């Protein structure tokens, strides 16, 4: 049991604050938390409670028996100092002792926490004043918050619950006592009344059960910046004319020797055509080549019945290819816009998925003709759930995209990875959809018509090997691959040897860090070479890629990642579609164009909730939401202070406290605070007589865009990045247009362009009111009343209509 020392009576005449039993109790739990962080997982958590309580009791007894600082001779003071130092060093010494006896390697965080606990004991022992006791209480709270992330023992959850209750009661008593001192006749609460309260709290905590890895779940709810140009200078750049290109397409692109339901039925390119264009044609059997003879129209009518091998076009992916074609055709007028995307980029749009591999070809295990009818769940307002049935929709801030089909011929809806729900206006009949593979909804009978716009709500994060804490946004556990189709590879000794060389054992933990390590090693292991091909005689292209050539196009990296993780026991698959990087942005429609060059192949892994998570193993390519935002870095920093295990249990109170703290600091407040700071700086600059109001306001807009997560890339001009796409731009007096016009004159005109200070100040004030943080965040559409609303180029979080 936790020892409950008697009240430490400190002489009020000496100015010492009395230490109540409740405060002593709180101190003891705080020290116990520190001990919990130092103990190996194999040791019982009761050891930590015992040692922590003992250290606290020792400090209190020392404080009771020793005189105050300065009293007595130098020998007394020296002895006093030695005792205090010894007690303060107890946590660190205890940590060292435990580690040296039981093995293991304490990280720097262990000594950080030991130092904090030592500081608490030091204050207890050294007759601290009331204010310093409060500091000690704050330090114990710090230990408590960290322990909510660290704890792995059920006793810790119990401790946290008790601590939360005790601290709440302490605060209540302090308040009631103060009220009693101010109000005559009021009887303060007594500490003994806390016992039933704590008992109820313990029962409630036990009844609710252990909330496993709640810290990870909370971290998954934290926001990320949303901008993609932070690391990618290609973001939001490019030219093209969007819908005009779509409207102008005229040439047939779909051709090939293999019959399919898409073949010769449309002049629009399918994903199969794009694979062949980008990676080269797969080898065709002689039988298929013979069928490739051009037919007259009359003969085509006779061959309406599909041949036996005609079902595989687009439903299998060969890793033996002839290599990338070199475009030597003259320029034509065919449209290049396969899709357009309105929303943050880069983003992966999935169109195909394969789960069976025979050493050369990826295919689907399901019968392509037996498409499963999905359980379409209507969410209201034509919204349809896309994810696994029963999986909860995200409660945090998801991303919104609108994908418009251009010239692409595909029955599958081009949806981002980790799509939660989608919406095609007035198409909400479950009978109109089918499900060729998991999370691959398709129209039941036809291809998606050109011009169809699908509004999507998704969380398109993934793992690309650079995230220090890759499991944050995802479910805590991974699925084992019990249902993965047999790859026919049998024992793959070369793969074991490769993993051993990489330092990743086949018996590694099934956690996200293992997945991230594999992705990172695959990225570094080989060189990206889009023109590299594998010999047609190679029995296993992945083995050849990993052990012999070590160079190849993106599908080799994806295939290698898929097989390695599958070998480790994870459920994985190969996916293909578009990696829309934002390199081509139509300046008029403000949409990102997906062209043939964006065709990409990547790996996917399934988490516990049934979601397929993208893995980006191709060098040079990145995924969104991989640890760039401030909130994410803070969360990772907290988790990095003390390593945690996937199955650690945390207390509900601790989770709520840490979530509130991190959320309050990173989600709602910091942007407001930063905006207030830059606005104050702008007002200061506007007040200076020597400054140019337009330049000061331009700097303000740039800073606000940075705060909003949508900074202007260095290669983008101010006009292209900030000027709304529509609206009364011709009028020079309109705020954004007038400001940019005047600012350009100041920037690029003659030296006299900044003389009209009064006029420029008026324009600058109007511009400051226009480009608010809300507008730059994309949360509102700006525009004067009665005028057309604006569409800024970086409106990433606009709700689809």
């Amino acid at each position, binding site marked *: 049991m936790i020892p409950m020392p008697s009240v430490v009576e400190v002489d009020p005449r000496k100015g010492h604050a009395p230490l109540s039993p409740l405060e002593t109790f709180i101190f003891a739990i705080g020290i116990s938390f520190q001990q919990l962080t130092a103990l190996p997982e194999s040791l019982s958590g009761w050891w930590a409670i015992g040692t922590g309580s003992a250290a606290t009791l020792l400090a209190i007894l020392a404080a009771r028996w020793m005189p105050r600082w300065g009293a007595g001779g130098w020998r007394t003071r020296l002895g006093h100092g030695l005792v205090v130092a010894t007690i303060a060093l107890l946590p660190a010494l205890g940590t060292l002792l435990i580690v040296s006896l039981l093995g293991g390697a304490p990280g720097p965080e262990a000594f950080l926490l030991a130092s904090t606990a030592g500081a608490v004991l030091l204050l207890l022992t050294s007759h601290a004043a009331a204010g310093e006791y409060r500091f000690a209480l704050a330090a114990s709270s710090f230990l408590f918050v960290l322990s909510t992330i660290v704890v792995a023992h059920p006793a810790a959850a119990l401790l946290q619950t008790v601590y939360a209750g005790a601290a709440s009661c302490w605060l209540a008593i302090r308040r009631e006592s103060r009220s009693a001192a101010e109000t005559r006749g009021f009887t303060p609460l007594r500490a003994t009344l806390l016992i039933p309260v704590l008992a109820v709290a313990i029962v409630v905590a036990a009844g609710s059960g252990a909330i496993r890895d709640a810290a990870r779940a909370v971290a998954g709810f934290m926001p990320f910046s949303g901008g993609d140009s932070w690391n990618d*200078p*290609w973001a939001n*750049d*490019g*030219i*093209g004319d969007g819908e005009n290109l779509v409207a*102008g397409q005229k040439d047939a692109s779909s051709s090939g020797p293999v019959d399919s339901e898409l073949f010769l039925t449309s002049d629009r390119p399918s994903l199969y055509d794009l694979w062949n264009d980008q990676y080269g044609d797969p080898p065709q059997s002689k039988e298929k080549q013979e069928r490739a003879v051009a037919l007259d129209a009359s003969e085509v009518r006779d061959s309406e019945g599909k041949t036996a091998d005609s079902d595989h076009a687009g439903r299998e992916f060969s890793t033996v290819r002839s290599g990338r074609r070199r*475009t*030597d*055709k*003259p*320029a*034509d007028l065919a449209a*290049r816009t396969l899709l357009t995307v309105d929303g943050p980029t880069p983003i992966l749009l999935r169109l195909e998925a394969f789960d069976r591999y025979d050493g050369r070809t990826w295919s689907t295990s399901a019968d392509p003709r037996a498409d499963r009818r999905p359980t379409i769940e209507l969410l209201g307002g034509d919204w349809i759930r896309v994810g696994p049935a029963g999986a909860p929709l995200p409660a945090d801030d998801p991303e919104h995209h609108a994908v418009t089909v251009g010239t692409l011929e595909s029955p599958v809806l081009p949806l981002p990875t980790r799509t939660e729900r989608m919406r095609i206006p007035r198409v909400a009949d479950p009978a109109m959809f089918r499900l060729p593979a998991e999370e691959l909804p398709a129209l039941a009978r036809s291809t998606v018509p050109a011009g169809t716009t699908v509004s999507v709500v998704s969380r398109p994060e993934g793992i690309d090997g650079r995230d220090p804490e890759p499991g944050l946004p995802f479910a805590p556990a991974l699925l084992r691959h019990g249902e993965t189709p047999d790859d026919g590879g049998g024992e793959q000794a070369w793969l074991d040897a490769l993993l051993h060389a990489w330092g990743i054992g086949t018996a590694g933990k099934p956690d996200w860090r293992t997945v991230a390590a594999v992705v990172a090693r695959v990225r570094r292991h080989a060189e990206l070479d889009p023109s590299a091909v594998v010999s047609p005689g190679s029995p296993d292209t992945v083995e050849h890629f990993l052990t012999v050539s070590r160079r190849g196009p993106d599908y080799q990296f994806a295939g290698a990642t898929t097989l390695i993780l599958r070998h480790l026991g994870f459920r994985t698959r190969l996916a293909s579609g578009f990696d829309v990087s934002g*390199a*081509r942005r139509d300046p008029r429609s403000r949409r990102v164009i997906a062209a043939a*060059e964006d065709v990409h192949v990547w790996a996917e892994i399934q988490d516990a909730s049934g979601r397929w998570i993208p893995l980006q193993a191709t060098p040079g390519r990145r995924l969104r939401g991989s640890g760039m935002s401030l909130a994410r870095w803070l969360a990772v920093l907290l988790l990095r202070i003390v390593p945690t295990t996937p199955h650690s249990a945390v207390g509900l109170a601790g989770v709520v406290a840490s979530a509130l703290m991190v959320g309050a600091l990173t989600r709602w407040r910091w942007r407001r605070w930063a905006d207030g700071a830059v606005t104050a700086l702008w007002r200061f600059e506007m007040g200076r007589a020597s400054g*140019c109001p337009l*330049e000061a306001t*331009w700097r303000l807009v740039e800073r606000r865009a940075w705060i909003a997560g949508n900074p202007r*890339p*260095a*290669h*983008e*001009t*101010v*006009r*292209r990045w900030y000027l709304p796409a529509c609206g009364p731009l011709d009028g020079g007096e309109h705020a954004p247009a007038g400001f940019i016009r005047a600012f*350009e*004159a*100041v*920037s*690029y*005109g*003659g030296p006299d362009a*900044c003389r009209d200070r009064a006029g420029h100040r008026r324009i600058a004030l109007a511009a400051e009111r226009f480009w608010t943080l809300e507008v730059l965040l994309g949360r509102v559409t700006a525009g004067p009343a009665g005028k057309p609303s604006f569409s800024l180029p970086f409106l990433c979080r606009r709700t689809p209509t």
Partner: protein
Amino acid sequence: MTTFQPAAAPPADHAVFVGSPPLETISRMRRWLRAALRGKDEVCDLALACLLAGGHLLIEDAPGLGKTTLAKALAVLAGGRFARVQCTPDLLPSDVTGFTLYNQQSRQFEFHAGPVFADVLLADEINRATPRTQSALLEAMAERQVTIDGKPHPLPGHFFVVATQNPLEHLGTYPLPEAQLDRFGIRLRIGYPARGDEVELLRMARSVGPEDGHGEAGSLPTGIELDRLQRFVAGVAVAERVAAYLVDVGRELRARLGGDRGPSPRGLLVWQRVAQAWGAIEGREHVTPDDVRHVAAPVLGVRIDLPKREFDGLLDAALAAIAVPVGRQGA
């Protein structure tokens, strides 16, 4: 086939451009030209920029999209004689430049000027002429003079060539050499008009003639002092940092093309001048990086011989690699 047409006679009460400020004149020219070729505002603006920059214009597109209409409208704006040469494989250089003929009555050699002596020359389907005939245009386009029988003949002051070629047909054609392509200021593609513009075009054709599509464009512009406007465009301010930005993009293009290709210094000069003209068309007396970027594709497309798809990707990459100068102190 060569045809000469004098510029339309100006009505006496429509000398609307005389003495007006340059930016206002350019703005009215812009509106007039846009009305002359409906639905192709961007093409009209770029063609006008080429005219104001003093460059020559190459139009690539299918027949019937308005190339001749645009050239005639430009001739009206230029305010001089308009000549058209329908290039064929049997077209001789003397058919373009002119020739000297012995007059038995006067017993003297007389010079008969060719269509190249017009103010605006439309060389239709120029890639159907033989390289010999094409090269006859070289001296005219670059030096603004032709030499016949060893005697130089200067061309009109603002000699302006509008050449067209059909990129979709390659049989029986002679692709223009790079040396000649570099003489052009910009290359344009007109493209098909939008549906609404075509409906409007048909409506206008019912009320006026099919070849007089700009009948509603308003009064014919007269009194345009093209020399004065071109001098004004040459004086449009280009900040040092904007010029450096233009050069950096050009050098980036050369680096990405291997160092031995890419825009020449003459190409950069033309690029800067067209950017100046574009700035003037936009109503400014200075050039912004947006102007440089806007005219980059038409100006460089004629100098970098790549398929359009590869050229677009190359230009995108080069523009994305160079930081845009912003503010008085730089980026």
